[in-house]
């Protein structure tokens, strides 16, 4: 059993959960995830780890809650226990001295990009963090991100903060301010990652994405998480979750994520968040 220390909605539909999981907290590195179950009958869902406190033995996750299991998760009160928190799973994001790194986060990925930006900064990179949302009231953790970034860029669909539009504009914005980007790392909904990848392709900048297919075990046992990367089949849970975005078969990933749309209990992974992103 794993105790939920804190659970609150930080912006509409995004819940911040702090969970006591000392074994996970002591090993976790940026870019890894856990698999959670809310109750004994519950399904297993993968969730990125957004922060941790090794001393306290806790991890933090930012979860987009839109019914189904994520809806159940939203309702777990602080002080209650959930039966499964297993991890840290997947490979950590590669952290090195790259030069200038553009970290892009959207949706739950505004949370999970934070420890990546922090580690890159500690390594001595110039870190530019770009966060995207429909509107300004959907941003969170800006103070945390500011501390680990040399520059913060906001992009909103409605123009209420920063640049107006979507993440596809990011390289044009970079160019306008004469930034040379050595590497891009994107965390968030599939569509955000795809768009960011499409935008960087003409510039040939290495773009790392954290894929989020359906998962069950998270240890390479079931193969439901398979993705095609550079014409090879990979299991995202053990071979990833990070991959070179320019090699990913996005069409297939988007389709596979829709497998259970009709069964609706996979709300987290087939979020309406994605639907509105498909509209220009």
């Amino acid at each position, binding site marked *: 059993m794993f105790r939920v220390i804190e659970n609150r909605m930080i912006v509409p539909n995004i819940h911040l959960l702090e969970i006591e999981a000392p074994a996970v907290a002591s090993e976790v590195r940026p870019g890894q995830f856990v698999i959670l179950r809310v109750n004994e009958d519950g399904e297993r869902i993968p969730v990125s780890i957004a922060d941790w406190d090794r001393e306290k033995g806790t991890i933090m996750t930012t979860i987009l809650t839109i019914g189904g299991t994520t809806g159940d998760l939203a309702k777990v009160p602080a002080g209650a226990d959930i039966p499964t928190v297993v991890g840290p799973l997947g490979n950590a994001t590669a952290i090195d001295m790259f030069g200038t790194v553009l970290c892009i986060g959207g949706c739950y990925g505004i949370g999970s990009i934070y420890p990546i930006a922090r580690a890159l900064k500690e390594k001595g990179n110039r870190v530019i963090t770009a966060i995207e949302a429909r509107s300004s009231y959907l941003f969170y953790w800006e103070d945390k991100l500011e501390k680990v970034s040399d520059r913060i860029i906001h992009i909103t669909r409605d123009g209420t903060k920063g640049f107006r539009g979507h993440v596809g504009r990011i390289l044009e914005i970079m160019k306008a301010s004469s930034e040379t980007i050595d590497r891009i790392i994107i965390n968030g909904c599939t569509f955000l990652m795809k768009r960011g990848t499409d935008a960087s392709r003409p510039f040939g900048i290495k773009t790392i994405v954290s894929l989020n297919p359906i998962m069950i075990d998270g*240890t390479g046992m079931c193969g439901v998480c398979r993705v095609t990367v550079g014409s090879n089949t990979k299991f995202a849970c053990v071979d990833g979750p990070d991959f070179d975005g320019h090699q990913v078969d996005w069409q297939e990933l988007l389709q596979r994520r829709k497998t259970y749309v009709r069964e609706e209990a996979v709300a987290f992974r087939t979020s309406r968040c994605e639907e509105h992103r498909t509209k220009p």
Partner: protein
Amino acid sequence: MAEPQKKKLDLNRREMPKQPPEVRKHNFGEVALGYSIENAVREAERCLQCKKPLCVSKCPVEIDIPGFIKSVAQRDFTTGIKVLKEKNLLPAVCGRVCPQEEQCEEVCVLVKKGGQIAIGRLERFLADWEASQETVGIPEIPPSTGRKVAVVGGGPAGLTVAGDLIKLGHQVTIFEALHKLGGVLTYGIPEFRLPKAIVNREVDYLRRLGTEIVPDFVIGKTRTIESLLKEYNAIFIGAGAGLPWFMNIPGENLNGVYSANEYLTRMNLMKGFLFPEYRTPIKEHKQVAVVGGGNVAMDCARTALRLGAETRIIYRRSREELPARLEEVENAEEEGIIFEFLTLPIRYIGDENGWVKEIEYLKMKLGEPDASGRRSPIPIEGSQTKLSVDAVVCAIGNSPNPLIPATTPGLTMGKKGNIVADEQTGKTSMDRIWAGGDVVTGAATVILAMGAGRKAARSIHEYLCSLS
């Protein structure tokens, strides 16, 4: 003891009642229903009580088979179960899923006359009898030796090691990646062949013996083997062979194409057949094709059938070469599974939404026997044919998961991704580390995994006793 020999030979192997095919194909209840006391006693009375029992020599864990059968014949079930449990920690499981026809029963002296003793059914009978009693006895545990053992993986191999060592007074912790113990018994073998209540009961027994059980803990991720070595005197790796194979043919990543592991895990571990009460969804497919011919393929096909799909087994050789147990093949046939023999899928074709809608396959003919001794299939040119489906389950095999080897550099590995361990002791190339079960042999059987666990436990015990 000469007395039973004088008896007239009784070759009438007692049948075990089963749910009729028409009924069972619509439910997930157990297919075989077990012996009544009278049937069990009658069956046990037929045993000739051989002086040199061949059956025992063919049992991977050397159960005193004539011994427990004699107790059944004498209606002394308490002694019977004790004899059985001396060698086999999981009789209720083995009585159901062991391939007795190629082990103990194959060498029964009555087999030539077709009247071999139903050893597996009697084993199951005793285990079920014990479970039906009010109290299941707990053996006395000697005082703690203070030695600590970590067991990685809660499948049959790991459970056996834990059971043996805890009874010798060592402190045992089982680390399991999933949220439930049992390994393949829990996530793979379906309810209708092995009710999960039985597996839970056995795990619970270990817990009552004082085993510490840590689920949701992935060795190689949550903690490495190296780190465990600092805290534990010995480590046993029983991580199984859980990495699913695919055929690497076009269309394999279409929606509706599953690995056997995914399909069975959704159903068994996550109870998908109770969706939406249990939250893990399972699709309502109408036409399912299961590719493969082993026990795993049979389990997938019979599961799909029970969910209401017209179900086919697609196998590249003929019926004679099917690696599955004959009993399971017959069960599948009775239930109405369609067998497409000499058929090899070459491509899956999707619809406009990325869902599989057709399999394209080649017809095969049989050629010369290959390395496995089975006649190898050869494609017939120009025999491409298409078959409509809305789901495919790929059940062509598994190999050990690379997570542990990848994070344990000192471990010597075999060609097939297996951990190399001594057959007699389970010792690996690394000090204080033992391994056994599917992770060493590749996908095999429950009883072989338990046998390997038993040998490793013996070797670990010797080692722990040698520490001053």
